[in-house]
C-alpha cells in the first residue's frame, strides 16, 4: 500500500514535468529516440530515489536527474561533443559587428534559429534551453547544471553572442 502511495505521489508531483524533461533531453541529445530513452531512464531513477525528495522545486529536481542522465550518456556515446573547445576569438562578436537592423527588420527564419541552437556546444545549449524555454532563474540553472551563478551568466552571454553571429551570417547568405 505504501508503494501505491509513493507511485501516486510521484505521478502527481513529477509527471507534470514530463514535457520539460523531454524538451531538455531532446535538446541535449538532438534526437527523438535517444531523448525518450533518457527520459525513461531518468524517470525511473527519479522514482527510485523519490523517497529522498523532500519537497522543494520538483521540476528542478527532475531536470537535474535528466541532465545527469544525458551527460552520462553523452560521455559514453558522444564524448567528442563534450570536448569541443569553444574558441572565443572566433565567436566573439563586437558591438560594431552587428547590423542593428538585421534582427529587427528581417523576418527571422524559425529553421535558422533551430539550427543555430543545435550548433551550440552542449554546455551553452543547455543554459539557453533552461533560461529561454523553461524560464528558470540563474539560481535554478546553477543547481541543475552544477555550475556557479557567474558561469551561468557568462555562458548565456556567449551563447547569445554566438546565436546572433550565426543568424546574422545566415541572413546575409540569403540575400
Amino acid at each position: 500500500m505504501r508503494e501505491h502511495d509513493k507511485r501516486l505521489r510521484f505521478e502527481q508531483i513529477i509527471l507534470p514535468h514530463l514535457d520539460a524533461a523531454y524538451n531538455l533531453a531532446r535538446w541535449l541529445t538532438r534526437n527523438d529516440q535517444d531523448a525518450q530513452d533518457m527520459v525513461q531512464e531518468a524517470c525511473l531513477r527519479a522514482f527510485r530515489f523519490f523517497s529522498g525528495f523532500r519537497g522543494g522545486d520538483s521540476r528542478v529536481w527532475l531536470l537535474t536527474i535528466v541532465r545527469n542522465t544525458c551527460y552520462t550518456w553523452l560521455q559514453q556515446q558522444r564524448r567528442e561533443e563534450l570536448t569541443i573547445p569553444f574558441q572565443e576569438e572566433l565567436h566573439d562578436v563586437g558591438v560594431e559587428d552587428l547590423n542593428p537592423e538585421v534582427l529587427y527588420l528581417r523576418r527571422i527564419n524559425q529553421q535558422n534559429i533551430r539550427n543555430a541552437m543545435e550548433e551550440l556546444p552542449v554546455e551553452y545549449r543547455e543554459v539557453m534551453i533552461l533560461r529561454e524555454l523553461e524560464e528558470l532563474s540563474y539560481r535554478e540553472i546553477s543547481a541543475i547544471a552544477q555550475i556557479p551563478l557567474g558561469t551561468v551568466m557568462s555562458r548565456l552571454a556567449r551563447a547569445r553572442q554566438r546565436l546572433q553571429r550565426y543568424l546574422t551570417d545566415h541572413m546575409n547568405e540569403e540575400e
Partner: protein
Amino acid sequence: MDCTETQRLLHAYLDAELDMTDTLEVEQHIQKCPACLQTYNNYQALRTAIKTSSLYFQAPEKLRKSIGSSVRKANTTVFISQVTSWRGLSIAAALILAMFLSLWAFTHVWPTSVASNPLPQEVLASHVRSLMANHLVDVPSSDQHTVKPWFNGKLDFSPSVVDLARQGFPLLGGRLDYLDNQPVAAVVYAHRKHIINLFIWPSTQNMGGERDTTTLQGYHLIHWTKSGMTYWAVSDLNLNELQQFVQLVQASS
C-alpha cells in the same frame, strides 16, 4: 556605469537577475548610450525570436504512457531489466566485473595493515560505489542551507556542511550512506573534475587534532576527529589538494 560594465551586466539585466541598484544604473546608461542600446535591442530581438519560434518539444504521448506503466511495475528489480539496453548491460557487466576485481583486491592484494583495519576499505568502497551507481547525491544542491537541513530526521546528529565554492571546492550535495555499522552523512564536494566524499558520523574516538592519511589504490583518505565527530575525506585528487580541502573544512566547521 561605463560601456564595459554595462556590457558585462547586460545579460543579467535582460534576464531580470540584477538587483535594484544595478538595474537602475544599466537603464540610465542605456538611455544615453546608443551603442549599448543597440546591443540591448539586438539581444531583446533575439529573445523574442527564440520565444516565438516554437522550439519547445512536447513529450510524445507514447513516452507518457510507457513511463506511467513502467513506474507502476517498477520495483528495484524490474527497474534494471526495463531500461537497460544491451549497451547499458555491457557497461553494467563491466562495472560488476570491476566490483569483483576490487573485492578481490580488497581481500588479496592490499597490505595486511590495511586489511586488519577494515574501515578505510569500507570508506573507499563507499566512495567508489557512489561514483559507479549513479547515486552520488540524494540532495543535489550547492547551497549549504539546503543540504544541511536535508539530513534532519534522517540522522540523529547534524553534520557540518560548509560552502567552499570560493576556495575552489563547490558543494554538490549530500547523501545518506552506511559505514561502521551506522547511517552516516556523506557530503559531496568537487574540485575541477574530481569528486570528494566527506563522510561524517559521531564517534567517541579522539585523535587530538591529528590527521591520519591513507593511500589505497590511488585514492587518498584523510581521517580526523573533531568535537565528537569522526571525519573521512576521500578522493582521487592529489594528496596536496585533498589536504588543502581538509584544512578548509577544519577551519570552517
